[in-house]
C-alpha cells in the first residue's frame, strides 16, 4: 500500500517540478526582455544629453550623426560653471531643497507618529485627509495660491512673490502630505508592543519617537527624505510662476529662462545644465540606497 503511493507520487512530482523550472526560465527570459527595453527607454535621454553637452554649438547644428561626438569639448561645462548666474541657480536650488526637506521632516514625522500611534478623536479621518490633499494637482492650486500671496502682500506689506524663499512655504504643501503618508505606513508596521515597552521603560511620547521610532523606521525616513528632496529639486511650475528675477530663480526654471533666448535654444548648455542638475539627486540616491534597502526591524519581535 505504502509502496504504491510512493510509486504514484514519484513521477507526478518530478513532472511538476520540471514544468515549474521551465515556467521560471521563461519568466526570467521575459523579465530580462522587458527590463532591457525599459533600460534602453530610460537611459537614451540622459545619454543623448551627455553626448550633446560635449559638443560645440556648431557641431550640434551641423548635419552630422547626432549620436556621436566628433570634436568633444568641455566648453559648455566651463561656460556654465564659471557663470555666476548658473551658480546662483544652483545655490538657490540647494537652499530651497535643504530647507524644504528639513521643514517637511520636522512636520511630517511627528504628524505621522501622532496619526499612527496616538489614538485621538478623528485621527483616522485626518490621516485620510492628509493623503487626499496630496491628490489635488499643483496645476489647480497655483493660481489661487498666487492670489493668496498677492493679497497677503497687499495687506501686510510683506512681499513674498518673486523671492526664492516663497518656495519654502509652497513646496511643503506637496511634500508634507505624501511624506506623512509614507511615515504613517512605516510607523504602523512597528509592533505596538515596542512603544508599550518603551512607555513602561519610562519613555515619554517624544522619547519614544526619537529613540525608538525614528531609528527603527529609518528606511521609511530615508524614502520620505528622498521624495521630499526630489520634489523640491525638480519642481518646475511653482518657481516658474512665483519667481521671475534672475537672482531668485532655481535651476530648472533658470536653465529654461536664461538659456532660451527668444527662439534661440542654446542646446549645448541646456543639456549640460540639465545633466549637472541631475547629479545631486543621483549622488544622494546612490549614497542612501544601502540604508534604504536594509530592513532594520528584523529581530524586534518573533518572526
Amino acid at each position, binding site marked *: 500500500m505504502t509502496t504504491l503511493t510512493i510509486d504514484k507520487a514519484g513521477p507526478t512530482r518530478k513532472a511538476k517540478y520540471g514544468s515549474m523550472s521551465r515556467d521560471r526560465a521563461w519568466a526570467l527570459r521575459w523579465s530580462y526582455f522587458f527590463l532591457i527595453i525599459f533600460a534602453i527607454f530610460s537611459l537614451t535621454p540622459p545619454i543623448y544629453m551627455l553626448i550633446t553637452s560635449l559638443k560645440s554649438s556648431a557641431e550640434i547644428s551641423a548635419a552630422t550623426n547626432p549620436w556621436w561626438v566628433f570634436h568633444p569639448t568641455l566648453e559648455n561645462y566651463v561656460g556654465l560653471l564659471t557663470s555666476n548666474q548658473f551658480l546662483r541657480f544652483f545655490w538657490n536650488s540647494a537652499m530651497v531643497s535643504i530647507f524644504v526637506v528639513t521643514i517637511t521632516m520636522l512636520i511630517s514625522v511627528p504628524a505621522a507618529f501622532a496619526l499612527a500611534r496616538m489614538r485621538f478623536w478623528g485621527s483616522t479621518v485626518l490621516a485620510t485627509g492628509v493623503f487626499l490633499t496630496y491628490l489635488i494637482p499643483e496645476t489647480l492650486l497655483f493660481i489661487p495660491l498666487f492670489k493668496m500671496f498677492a493679497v497677503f502682500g497687499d495687506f501686510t506689506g510683506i512681499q513674498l512673490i518673486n523671492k526664492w524663499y516663497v518656495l519654502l512655504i509652497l513646496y511643503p504643501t506637496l511634500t508634507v502630505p505624501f511624506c506623512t503618508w509614507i511615515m504613517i505606513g512605516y510607523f504602523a508596521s512597528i*509592533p505596538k*508592543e*515596542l512603544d*508599550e*515597552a*518603551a*512607555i*513602561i*521603560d*519610562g*519613555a*515619554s511620547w517624544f*522619547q519614544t519617537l526619537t*529613540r*525608538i521610532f525614528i*531609528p*527603527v523606521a*529609518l528606511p521609511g525616513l530615508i524614502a520620505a527624505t528622498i521624495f521630499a528632496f526630489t520634489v523640491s529639486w525638480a519642481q518646475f511650475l511653482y518657481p516658474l510662476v512665483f519667481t521671475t528675477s534672475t537672482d531668485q530663480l532655481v535651476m530648472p526654471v533658470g536653465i529654461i529662462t536664461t538659456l532660451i533666448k527668444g527662439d534661440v535654444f542654446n542646446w549645448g548648455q541646456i543639456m549640460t545644465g540639465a545633466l549637472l542638475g541631475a547629479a545631486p539627486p543621483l549622488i544622494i540616491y546612490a549614497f542612501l540606497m544601502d540604508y534604504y534597502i536594509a530592513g*532594520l*526591524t*528584523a*529581530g*524586534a*519581535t*518573533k*518572526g
Partner: protein
Amino acid sequence: MAEVNLRKVVKRYDEVEAVRGIDLDIADHEFVVLVGPSGCGKSTTLRMIAGLEDISDGDIMIGGDVVNDVPPKDRDIAMVFQNYALYPHMTVAENMSFGLRLKRYPKAEIKARVDEAARMLDIVELIDRKPKQLSGGQRQRVAMGRAIVRNPKVFLFDEPLSNLDAKLRVQMRIEIKKVHQKVRTTTVYVTHDQVEAMTLADRVVVMNHGRIEQIGTPTELYHKPATRFVASFIGSPAMNFIPCRLEDAGGKVQIRLSDKIVFPLPAAQAARYQKIPRTDKLLLGIRPEHVTEASAHVEPGIEPFDAVLDVTEPMGMETLIYFTMQGAQVCGRVNPNAGAKDGAPLRLAVDLNNMHLLNEVTGAVL
C-alpha cells in the same frame, strides 16, 4: 516590591464588557498566574495593571496607592511581552539598560545592574549582540533581563512563552521560576496554558468571560474546583463528566450512572451529598487517574465495572483509555500491562473517594 490589589475592576470596549468587575489581592513576593481561554479578559486585566489600558470602573492599587490615573512609567512595573518587543536597533546591553538610561542612573550602576542580570539569565556572552542575532529563547531572556534591571515593584508577564517551541517552553518555565526565587518580586503572569499556571504559580486565578471563576493554589484548584469550568480547564487530560442521579437504597445513598451501573457512595461522600434533592440532574466529575484497571483486592469506595474501550493511547508509563458512558466520553489511565486494547472490553474501577458532584444546570461543584 509591593502588593497589588484590584477592586471591582471593569473594562468596557464600546458595548463589550471584557472584564466584569474583578476583585483580586496579590500579596508581596507572590507569583500569581492569570489563566483562562482566549478572550477571557486575562491579558486586558494585566494591561490595566500595567497602565496600558484605561480602566472603565473600579480601582487598581500597587503598594497601597491607587494608580488608576498614574501613567505606566510612574507605576514602577516591568513587563515582558509575548513577542519580546526588544528594540531592534539596540544591543542586548542597550535594550536592558534603556529604562535606566532614561531615568539618568549613573553609568557605573547601570553597568553593574546589567551585568548582574546578564549573569543571572546566562546571557553574558550575548551582551553586545543585536536582537536579530538571537534565538527565540535568548530574546525572551533579554526581555526578562530588561525587566529585572529596573528592579520594579511588580513584574508583569504577558504569555511570555507562547512563541517558543514545546521543549524550550519547559526550560524557560524553570528559568522564570528560578528568577522569581532569586529576586522575589511580586509577579503577575498571564497564560492560556494550564500547565504553565500550575507549575509556576503560588496562586492561580482562573478567568472566564471576564470574570474570576476561582482563585487558589494549584493543588486547591486541582482537587477542589469550584465550577465545572475550572474542573475541566485545570488538569490534562481533563476531568470526565458523566450524567448521573442520586438514589436512596436501604438507608444508604447510591449514585446511578445508567440502568445497569449503580455505585454505593462511600460514607464521607454520602454524608456530604445527603441533602441534594434526588431529582436534580447531576454530573459525576472524575479525573482520569481515578478511572483505572480493577485490582484483585477490594478497597472501600473503589467500585469495579466493565467497559468496552473505544480508543487506547499508550503513553509509555501509562495507557490512556477512552470509552463511552451515558453518551459522555470518559478517559481513564491504566497500567500499560493492564491489557487495554482498542475495541476490547476491560474490567475497570472508579475511585469514588475522589469524586466530584456537579449540578448539570448551574455547573457548580456541590
